[in-house]
């Protein structure tokens, strides 16, 4: 039983090969004459586990020449690699031809995005799966042991580690990342974009804040290439999670149209915060390109100081006429509010947009559907004034324990809403500034 298991394991190991081991092999032709050494393997990208397509052989020491053969010509794959063609059929050239995707050039020793652990990693080795005559990319090795293997020190190091601790995690834990989760950052030099190996859906499963961090672990060229490959919604989501400085850095590299498109897809308060930090003429340029609706909202928001309630608020909120019935209000929520970030509260206004009261979805659901919405409002409407400071807003929200608060002017006309997360990030940044000033004293 134990033997069977050992056999099965040995077989499984034989089916996996490391790219670094292949690179050490010599290539023999059909007449078992030495052709050269393995230099690289080109793979067909676009599949979940890309298959080896061509073998690139290099020979010569002073004048280096390379030739390539299709993978179907590779017959043996043991101590050395056997070809089914005689060496005179190979055309050796001084330059490596342009291939779409090469393992050594584009993966080995390069950086990749590990979308499973949400990190940028350096590839120490490539783990290949051999099935019959096919060779497929299965994993990339980012672990310490992979690095030791590359240095040809695996045996002595393994021996030493085993002598000290038999069950050391170093021996067992292989840091292999499945190819499914690997996004290479090699850039197509012509279009300056990156080929996404994963789907937009997979990307969407990564929280935008993490995605933002991944993007800033890459160098500027790679960063822009990956960024360009994303769809505009994902771009806007990432954008919202970035610090203003980083937003500015990316915006500087985008053309105006693309920038405007992203700003349009951001929530209005985030967009206004960003525009406020940009030079005036840039803002004017952007606003002309942004959809009229959004532009109107933004230029309204830009008029307020960023530390006042007016600067903090968003203009996305659900307002309903006081005459509406509860039934039609629920219907409205069901069908018209998909685009809203949150539905904390529902604001009841008259025909001149004067704030009459505040309700919640829950209050509407339990109310009599024939009543007007005005009957469901809270007994007291808490609101803040456009010019109130961040501190005052935070104080009022804390005092009345509300997660969102309406912002009105002196005539009680509703202008916007401040949500908990907006005020929280503002208060935290103020607190941090104070703390770091106090503790660093630099």
């Amino acid at each position, binding site marked *: 039983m134990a033997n069977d298991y050992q056999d099965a394991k040995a077989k499984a190991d034989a089916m996996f090969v490391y790219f670094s081991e292949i690179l050490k092999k010599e290539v023999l032709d059909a007449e078992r004459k030495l052709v050269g050494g393995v230099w690289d393997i080109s793979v067909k990208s676009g599949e979940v586990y890309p298959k080896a397509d061509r073998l690139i052989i290099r020979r010569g020491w002073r004048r280096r020449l390379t030739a390539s053969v299709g993978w179907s010509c590779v017959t043996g794959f043991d101590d050395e690699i056997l070809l089914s063609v005689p060496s005179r059929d190979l055309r050796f050239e001084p330059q490596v031809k342009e291939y779409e995707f090469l393992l050594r050039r584009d993966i*080995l*020793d*390069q*950086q990749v995005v590990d979308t499973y652990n949400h990190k940028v*990693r*350096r*590839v*120490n080795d490539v783990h290949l799966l051999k099935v019959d005559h096919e060779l497929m990319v299965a994993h990339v090795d*980012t672990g310490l042991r992979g*690095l030791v293997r*590359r*240095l*040809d020190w695996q045996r002595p190091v393994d021996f030493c580690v085993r002598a000290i601790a038999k069950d050391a995690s170093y021996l067992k834990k292989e840091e292999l990342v499945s190819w499914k989760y690997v996004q290479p950052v090699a850039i197509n*030099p012509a279009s300056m974009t990156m080929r996404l190996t994963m789907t937009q859906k997979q990307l969407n499963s990564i929280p935008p804040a993490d995605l933002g961090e991944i993007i800033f672990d*890459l*160098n*500027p*060229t*790679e*960063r822009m290439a990956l960024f360009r490959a994303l769809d505009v919604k994902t771009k806007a989501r990432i954008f919202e999670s970035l610090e203003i400085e980083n937003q500015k*850095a990316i915006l*500087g*590299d985008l053309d105006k149209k693309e920038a405007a498109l992203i700003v349009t897809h951001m929530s209005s308060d985030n967009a206004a915060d960003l525009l406020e930090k940009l030079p005036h003429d840039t803002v004017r340029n952007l606003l002309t390109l942004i959809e009229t609706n959004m532009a109107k909202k933004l230029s309204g928001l830009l008029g307020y100081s960023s530390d006042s309630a007016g600067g903090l608020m968003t203009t996305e909120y659900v307002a309903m006429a006081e005459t509406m019935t509860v039934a039609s209000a629920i219907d409205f929520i069901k069908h018209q509010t998909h685009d809203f970030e949150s539905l904390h509260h529902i604001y009841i206004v008259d025909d001149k947009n004067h704030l009459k009261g505040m309700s919640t979805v829950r209050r509407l659901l339990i109310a009599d559907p024939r009543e007007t919405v005005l009957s469901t409002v809270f007994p007291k409407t808490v609101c803040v004034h456009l010019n109130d400071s961040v501190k005052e807003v935070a104080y009022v929200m804390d005092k009345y324990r509300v997660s969102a608060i309406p912002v009105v002017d002196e005539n009680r006309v509703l202008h916007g809403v401040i949500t908990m997360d907006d005020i929280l990030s503002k208060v935290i940044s103020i607190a941090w500034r104070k703390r770091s000033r106090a503790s*660093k004293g*630099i």
Partner: protein
Amino acid sequence: MIFLGVMGPGIITANVDNDAGGITTYSVAGAHFGYSPLWIFLPMAVALVVIQEMCSRMGVVTGKGLADLIREKFGAKVTFYAMVAFLVSNLINTVCEFSGIAASCEIFGIPKHVSLPIAAVCIWWIVAKGTYKSVEKIFLVACLFYFSYIITGFLAHPSWGEVVGEAMRPRFSMNQATIVMIMGVIGTTIAPWMQFYQQSTVVEKGINVKDYRFARLDVIIGGIVVNIVAIFIIISCAATLFKSGIRVESAKDAALALKPLAGRNCSSLFALGLLNASLFSAMILPIATSYSICEGLGWENGVDKRLKEAPQFYFLFTLLLIIGAGVIMLPRVNLVTVMLLSQVTNSVFLPFVLIFMLLLINDRRLMGAYRNSGFFNIVSWTTVIILIALTITLTVMTFMPQSR
């Protein structure tokens, strides 16, 4: 305005060239040879700018550090052994910087058993708790303190006519002592780790290709400022120590010898400059070393990362600080030997780094339109070959007893 944003990496890196080892070499050169070594600094500024400019350009264009690029082009094996050499040479350099801290504090009457632990803890704290921006600000302020040497130069009342005359007239007398001095000056000014540091900071700063010309200006200003400081160190020693025929072995000797000749202020300023330079370099060297090693071997790194996120980075950084300060704390360490050893390891490693750089910067796939032009290649290869020839000769000569 853009320049103020881009400024930093070039000026900081160039100033770190004037570290404890550099100041020692300059003061000894000034004391023993008077104004005659001054002409070296014009060609040296050119060489420095040529080399630093290439690093800066690679950093801006590729957005990757030098260790990153070496790893990606030359593979894991080459990178690993290069990084081992890098670690060894920088470890010795760090020891050197701490010896500078100890020496300058002793001039002010602070024993090394007090000054070194305090310095090491402060450096660790600033880097571990700081961000890239706050650390860079500290570095830029430290750069200002180099002006103390310029003041020292004026306090020494040199005869300016003689200074200008010597600076314009190259003199290459073929005696062995002069050659060793010239090579020592060059060897301490262009050190291998600077190229790694410069490129990494350019990358970490995220300078855009559009702003590259400002980054180049930053490098040029740095290259000029550093040479002016070096010139003033030589002037202050030449105008006083050389005129009185006093022979010194270290920067500390020079500072002490300045006291009776140029006054107490001059001597204190000289020591203050040494303290600042050593502290500054003792901070940058361990960061640069651990940063590049982590970069090349694919570990998380960076001043902006927390301890938990980048354990290898902080381990290496701490190790370098502890060994750096620890060796100097030992009772019987010959500082002159440490200095010499650091010069030798630097010069053994430098040729490799320079050749890596030239291969990388001519890589079409990597640099595109920003690779070296034919003319610039001639300039840089000439610079590199001269530097390599000089450093090899220096190494050989250090091992020959009659040369000292």
